């Protein structure tokens, strides 16, 4: 018998393995039918999951897809098909009993192992899921925090701008800006020596920058339909008026002036 076994060890083992495999398959199939609980086991070595599918399917049900963490959250459809190529020779009738004993033993061990493995896998899965979940939650929180910060920054910028506008509007309402504009216009008109070619229809714009004390520091010509004499006269009008008068209320001061020369007659 031992000699026989030894002699036929490989076919025996093969046969036993095959049986075992069949059994497992049958059991597995039964399990699938009877339970909604997904079997997460067994197939570990044989399962091929399309990497492309995974994040997609994962993303489908989850609010935030953490692409690095890829636990198999759902059944990746294991396909434990029997391997037809490795089909062993059919066992001879005289070894059948021993085989059956062995198979029963193996089956028992298998079931036990499987249960343990199943437990461990489920456990790992739970841990994985927990970790992923935590990470995801953290990221969501971070993101929310970042957005909130950005929003509040924008809001405070808007607030600041609104306040500045409010201030400017208040100054404007007080008439100080109008008064400032009037004194500036007067100062420049007094200094604009109109050449004869500056007639109605002329329109020339100067962009003027003044220092705090009213000193003209830059004069740039914008659009102008006047001749050279006109161009020189308007720039010189601004320079001649320098230093420009200061506003009664310093808040009305404006560094940059847009001056449009538009004679009425």
């Amino acid at each position: 018998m031992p000699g026989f076994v030894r002699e036929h060890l490989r076919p025996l083992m093969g046969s036993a393995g095959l049986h075992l495999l069949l059994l497992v398959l049958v059991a597995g199939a039964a399990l699938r039918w009877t339970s909604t609980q997904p079997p997460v086991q067994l197939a570990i070595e044989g399962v091929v999951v399309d990497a492309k599918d995974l994040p997609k399917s994962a993303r489908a049900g989850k609010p935030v897809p953490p692409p690095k963490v890829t636990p198999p959250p759902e059944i990746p459809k294991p396909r434990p098909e029997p391997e037809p190529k490795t089909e062993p020779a059919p066992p001879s009738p005289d070894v059948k009993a021993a085989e059956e004993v062995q198979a029963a033993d193996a089956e028992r061990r298998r079931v036990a192992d499987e249960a343990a493995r199943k437990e461990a896998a489920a456990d790992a899965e739970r841990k994985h899921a927990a970790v992923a979940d935590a990470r995801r939650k953290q990221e969501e929180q971070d993101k929310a925090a970042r957005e909130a910060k950005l929003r509040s920054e924008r809001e405070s910028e808007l607030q600041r701008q609104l306040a500045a506008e409010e201030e400017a509007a208040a100054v404007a309402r007080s008439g100080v800006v109008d008064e400032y504009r009037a004194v500036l216009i007067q100062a420049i008109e007094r200094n604009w020596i109109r050449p004869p070619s500056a007639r109605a229809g002329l329109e020339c714009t100067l962009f003027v920058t003044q220092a705090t004390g009213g000193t003209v520091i830059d004069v740039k010509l914008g659009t102008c339909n006047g001749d050279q004499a006109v161009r020189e006269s308007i720039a010189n009008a601004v320079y001649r008026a320098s230093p420009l008068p200061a506003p009664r209320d310093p808040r009305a001061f404006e560094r940059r002036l847009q001056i449009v020369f538009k004679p009425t007659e």
Partner: protein
Amino acid sequence: MQAGTESMRRPGTTLAALALGLLAMAGPSHAQLRLDITQGVRDAVPIAVVPFGGQTDGTATDVAQVIADDLRLSGRFAPLERRDMVARPTSGPEIRFQDWRLLKSDFIVVGRVEPDGAGSAVAFELFNVQTGQALLAQRLPVGSRGLRAASHRIADLIFERLTGIPGAFSTRIAYVTVEGRPPSQRYRLVVADADGFNPRTVTQSSEPIMSPAWSPDGESLAYVSFESKLSAIYLQRLASGERRRVSARSGINGAPAFSPDGRRLAITLSRDGNLDIYTLELATQTLTRVTSDDAIDTEPEWSKDGRSLYFTSDRAGNAQVYQVALDEARQAQRVTFTNGYNARPRLSPDGNELAMVTLDRGGYRIGVLDLKTRNLRVLTNARQDESPSFAPNGATVIYATKDRARGALAMVSSDGRFQQRLSSDQGDVREPVWSPFPAR
């Protein structure tokens, strides 16, 4: 939930972007005060013409003075008084612009007279005082006409650079002077520089001389002289003094005016009974009658294209200006309607305006009629202004006025803003006519 976050985030982002965009757009216009300038002053432009280097005091011609006087005479510029000049730079690098800014000069002219071979040359530079920008720098050799002519030329260049209009300071004026009292009077036809300097007598007579007119090339004058007791029209070349009588027909021969091509004269003759306008072909002496009205038709002036004449006529009861085409029909059209008296039309160089004497609020004044708009603007405000004549650049009108019962010359800018009286020690001065630009 996810869709919710998206849709909440989007409007948030959009709003923020919109807000930022609005800030960016509103920023410049808000941070800029806009001023609308609709008025200016009618002052002359302040300019400093610094005494030129290389000139010892007491030199016959003070270049800077000639330039400054020219610019002042144009009415457009107010040269700085010498006593106010804090420095005497003679070249660009020597100018401390802040000094001249304090003196409120907008522009500054510096220069010097330098030896140039056997003769000399004048170098000058023009700067904008406010910006320090160099606007003009040239060196002119002093020619046979001397330092004074060179100075006028410099004034021309400065005027053109600063106004966009060619200067007319190198041109000349012709006018008639009368000295003494009847019966011993002396009439002179005089040609002088545009600033009144260098007067030269072209012809003189104890009998009246009238109505000088420049040939288009500026080399001849036509005028009326009664030297033979009867009126006759003469043509005289200025360089040689050579002259010839071109019309001495019976009755009045008067008011010659050269056609734009210089080949014909429009004249007034009374040979057919009353005063009418004729044209005279100078080369052939061919006379063509243009008007034949019972009224007085006189003082012809050519249109720019030479195809019609403007003239004065009292055919409507008082003097008005008419235009007649030199075609078969010769139908005269009235041109002036504004005042009760308009006479002696003189065309502007661009052909768009007529200067004339107009009766305005009780005074005979110089008016300019815009031929397109038919709008007449009165330039002067005395009681007896007469004989207007445009400068060849159109910027100024010279005319005769009365100064304590004596005739004197005056100038007014063609927009009426500046008026200048020309001082004269030449007695009674009449009928100024401005020369064309010299052929260069």
